[in-house]
């Protein structure tokens, strides 16, 4: 059994189509904790102790967010800046996160095609994820391949439903240790496992 923590960041969930469904699918799964950051800290006043405590209690951390300017929404960046303290998360004394796993669950408006070298965004999603992943690697964590939902503007309701079901299954499998992490690392996307 693995305890999974979802750090979810969406500043306007009431307007979202896809993330609303995904988050509903993530609720009420055994050993999966949902930490809705914008709901918890509407004034960006992050309770660092609480967040560090949550990280300590969980083995696998999921950063779940829409892709804003090739990165996270502002609050999740604030969270990284404040929670991943020197001397706690990194540095010679900072060992709190060593060995824990990290996965990103990201929705992008642009299609998978738009994130190719010769296309609109000129870089792959993986390239854009380098700074975030490296931050957690510096803390001694192991980064698993991301789960991507792309081209969200054009997704039909039934397609969203399929993603929601996959997400729910993914969380279930992760919490029940259904995957071999070494095996997982061979894939580019976690989507391929589902």
């Amino acid at each position: 059994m693995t305890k999974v923590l979802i750090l979810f960041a969406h500043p306007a969930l009431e307007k979202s189509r896809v993330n609303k469904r995904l988050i509903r699918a993530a609720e009420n799964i055994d050993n999966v904790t949902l930490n809705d950051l914008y709901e918890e800290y509407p004034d960006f006043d992050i309770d660092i102790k609480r967040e560090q405590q949550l990280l300590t209690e969980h083995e696998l951390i999921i950063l779940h967010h829409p892709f804003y300017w090739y990165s996270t929404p502002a609050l999740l960046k604030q969270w990284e800046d404040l929670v991943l303290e020197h001397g706690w998360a990194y540095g010679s004394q900072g060992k709190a996160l060593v060995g824990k796993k990290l996965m990103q669950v990201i929705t992008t408006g642009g299609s998978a095609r738009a994130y190719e070298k010769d296309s609109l965004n000129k870089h792959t999603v993986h390239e854009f994820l380098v700074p975030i992943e490296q931050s957690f690697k510096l803390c001694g964590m192991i980064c698993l391949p991301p789960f991507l939902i792309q081209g969200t503007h054009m997704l039909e309701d039934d397609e969203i439903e399929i993603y929601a079901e996959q997400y729910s299954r993914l969380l279930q499998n992760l919490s029940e240790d259904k995957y071999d992490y070494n095996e997982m690392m061979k894939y580019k996307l976690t989507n391929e496992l589902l």
Partner: protein
Amino acid sequence: MQHDSFFFQALVYLTAAVVSVPIAKRIGLGSVLGYLIAGVIIGPAVLGLIGEGGQDIMHFAEFGVVMMLFVIGLELEPSLLWKMRSSILGLGGMQVLVTSILLAVAALIAGVHWQASIALGLTLSLSSTAIVLQTMKEKGLMKTDSGQSSFAVLLFQDIAVIPMLAIFPLLATQAVNSYDDHQTLVGSLPGWAQTLAVLAAVASIVVGGKYLIRPVFRFIAQTRLLEIFTAAALLLVIGTAVLMTQVGLSPALGTFLAGVVLANSEYRHELISDIEPFKGLLLGLFFISVGASINFNLILESPLLIAGLVIMLMVIKGLVLFSLGKFFKIGIDQNLIFSVSLAQSGEFAFVLFSFAAQNSIIETNIINIMVAVVALSMAMTPIVIVINEKLILPRFGTKEKVERESDTIEEDNPVIIAGFDKFGNIVGRLLKANGIGTTVLDFDSDRVEILRKLGLKVYYGDASRHELLHTAGAEKARLIIIAFDNAEKNISLVATVKKHFPHLKILVRAIDRPDAYELLNTGVNEVYRETIDVSLRMGIDAMRMLGVRAYRAHRAAKTFLKHDEKALRELSLMHKDKKEYLSAARQYIAELEELIQSDDTDPELERDAGWDIDSLREEVNKAEQ
């Protein structure tokens, strides 16, 4: 003590009610049947504690019906009445017409002469507004199809009483000599003048209710004497009733009209909660006297005849109602409730029978029997309703959803704001700007007046009375925001809400720290001190003027607030024991000292180490050496 002394009478009636009503309610019979049984027990049939006096009491208690119609009027908005016009005229009109004809024909066949048959038909076609509405309210059926249809029919019947009173003298078999013309002011006037007087009386209620009553109530409200407001409310009802009687109209109809006129006013909720207890007691008295007036000797003399008449009456009325319900497309189970509920004859029958006796339209022995039949049919109603509920309805699987969107009589807003001064009105405006419906109650009549002029739905009233909260829709609301400028009032309202509406989430304004402690100790967690946020904003600006970076000042204030809220909660527990031996001033100083000391020592006040690179710089320098 003499049997007829006022206090002895009161003792008998109150004891009977207090003993039998809760028992009847507990075993599922409803309060109406409880009162009726109480009446039978204390009446001549069993204990004989009240005898001939019962008739006078009945006359007095009929005023309960008048008050009930006033309250019904208040709960009805004219627009709603207009929406219901087709069911009032169609369903109600058809019911009175068809039932009257059938019952008259039955009487004719039984050998009663035709004038009396018509009078009997008309009289018996009316149902009991008091029993039906009381029962429907108790069962929460008022907003269902059956409740709305019943209400429409009853309303038509109440109006129909007036032309009936006008027709009866024409049916008289002997020369009319006993019509109590001298009882009314206008009785001696010629016909056209009487009509004019009636029109003038109705107009005065409408115009007075619209333009005169509100300033008067406002003036009274400004005195802030609750009992005078109650007295004024009673005066309004009684005054209207007397006026109506003087021009020969039904007082019930008059007060109903007055209620409708005042339904849109800001005093609506307060009036309802003022009149409600009187109405309830008088109605109870009315039911008791109906129970007591059942002549058991007469019933025992010819039990089969009377039982047969009761059954026939209820079956005919019920069948007519059921067919009409079907014609007006009421669903089967709602239709069953509707037709079973209205199948009795009502209190107006007693009035009309005595009127018919005065005019010698119906023979006295028939009237005696029919009075017993009517009283029994009223007494049977709660029983028949229970039978219908327990035995018949479960056989029909089509139980409809009771909830219906439209036809709201009371406010259905999710938020009630009690107290709408500078504090509450900001909360209210924020919610309103975001499309959240609020019902506002305030105790300051000037403010209510101004806000209503601005088009806000604000009601005048003392929110700490649970009746007012009830009429403001507290049952359906989700939150209550308590924001009076008065600590005691807020605390007492918290207690009222917790007691009567435990489902409501409470958000309460605290005036100062001790007040906040007290509120926290009542178990409410959402306590808002009225100046803390703005003081901190001022502090932020002061820090910025001294050159502190804006974001740093802002976060310092956030941290301070969090810390202070935590301290508030901790200290509220100590406050409980302390307040007994510390004077208020000493307590305040001690607390301030405590607070400032904890500010000095709390490491929490220095946070956000993630933006603080001291430790990182130290480590890097160490590595270089």
